[in-house]
């Protein structure tokens, strides 16, 4: 027998279930417990850049909205800097900007609303540049492992042409599933389709 590699194995994922709000957004579950609920203000008051609102729904394979979904967003600031020590420019991030948010859908309509600033282009691998995007992580009852995807912005088509991630998507029409569509001056629409026609592209990160 060769030596043992001795790696531990990642803990298995389980669905967040229908009551994920109790733990991660108790206000939405109908009670107040924590002094401060986390992820309610992604950009903070001092962030530079364009203030935007993205609305949308998460749709299941039958076309119905998923009304008990929770989404987390992670993004860079308008200058393309992540508020994290492994971004070499992180000290330049505006005070109060976290870039992380928690969003839940309306229990009746399934609509979610993301209020943030539009992120800037971020560094890619080996000197490349990534088009502006918001990283998205989606959990709900019936989702066994959290789903990763990205929101890009339709007006950045030039940057998309050279984006390393978008270019990995072989079927060209599927790339459109990652685009937030402009609906007004600072507003966008972005639906996530879990299954079926126009299924959103999800990533194994």
């Amino acid at each position, binding site marked *: 027998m060769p030596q043992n590699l001795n790696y531990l194995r*990642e803990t298995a994922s389980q669905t967040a279930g229908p009551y994920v*709000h109790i733990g991660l957004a108790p206000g939405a*579950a109908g009670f107040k417990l924590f002094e401060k609920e986390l992820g309610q203000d992604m950009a903070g008051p001092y962030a530079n850049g364009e203030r935007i609102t993205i609305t949308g729904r998460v749709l299941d394979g039958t076309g119905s909205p*998923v009304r008990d979904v929770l989404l987390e967003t992670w993004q860079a600031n308008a200058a393309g800097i992540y508020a994290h020590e492994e971004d070499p420019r992180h000290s330049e991030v505006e005070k109060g900007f976290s870039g992380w948010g928690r969003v839940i859908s309306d229990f009746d309509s399934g609509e979610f609303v993301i209020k943030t600033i539009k992120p800037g282009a971020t560094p890619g691998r080996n000197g490349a540049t990534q088009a502006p995007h918001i990283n998205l992580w989606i959990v709900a009852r019936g989702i066994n492992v959290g789903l990763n995807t990205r929101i890009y912005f339709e007006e950045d088509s030039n940057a998309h042409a050279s984006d390393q991630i978008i270019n990995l998507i072989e079927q060209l029409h599927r790339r459109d599933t990652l685009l937030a569509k402009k609906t007004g001056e600072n507003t966008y629409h972005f639906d996530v389709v879990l*299954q079926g026609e126009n299924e959103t592209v999800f990533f194994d990160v």
Partner: protein
Amino acid sequence: MTKKNTYTGEFYQRDRSMHPPAYAEIYKTSVPRSPKQALISIENSLSEITGPKFGHNDLGELDNDLIKNYAQTGDAIGERIIVHGRVLDENGRPVPNTLVEIWQANAGGRYRHKKDMYLAPIDPNFGGCGRTITDEDGYYFFRTVKPGAYPWRNWVNSWRPAHIHVSVFGTAFAQRLITQLYFEGDPLIKKCAIVNTIPDQDAIDGLIAPLDMNAGVPLDCLAYKFDIVLRGRRSTLFENRLEGN
């Protein structure tokens, strides 16, 4: 200056064979909520190796004490337990200063949620959520009551084993994980459709917290140990360049 931590490279690829598949026929809600197309595998960039940070200022004093953190007229009702353990990565290294959040039903199996209509009563002194940040050794603990089993609509007579939902961040968005903790000896574990979405028995065993008599408080409460393992990272020795500079 030489950095002590040389594990700053890419994250090891997630081993999907020990996670539940998106589509698991036995867990009916997953049927319409599972992508049919293959996930597209992407190499880590800054977008994946970074992630949100939390500090003690974000938390309140009783946030990790579910017996007290929603107490109105007295302590929460139920079997008093401590749940404790470490957050580690696949290299066996502790993950310090990371946020751990939990939520659960009360001792009767009822959630404090406007959508839960189960006939077991709400406990006026129990909220059902808690959070904490791991210490320098990756250690965390909560005090709570053991949750009850409850019925749910999957098959007509489906029951969830007693469980606590656990959410962990790690240092990077690529490590984000939500799972469930089960309790050693619970006969409902084997029968649970959600547990059985996991195709690997060792991975299921990894979600079952053993009774830990040493960590309990005599004449007060029992304890269960639950270690959580997040994805590990490569050392930087032979790394591709992750960043654009």
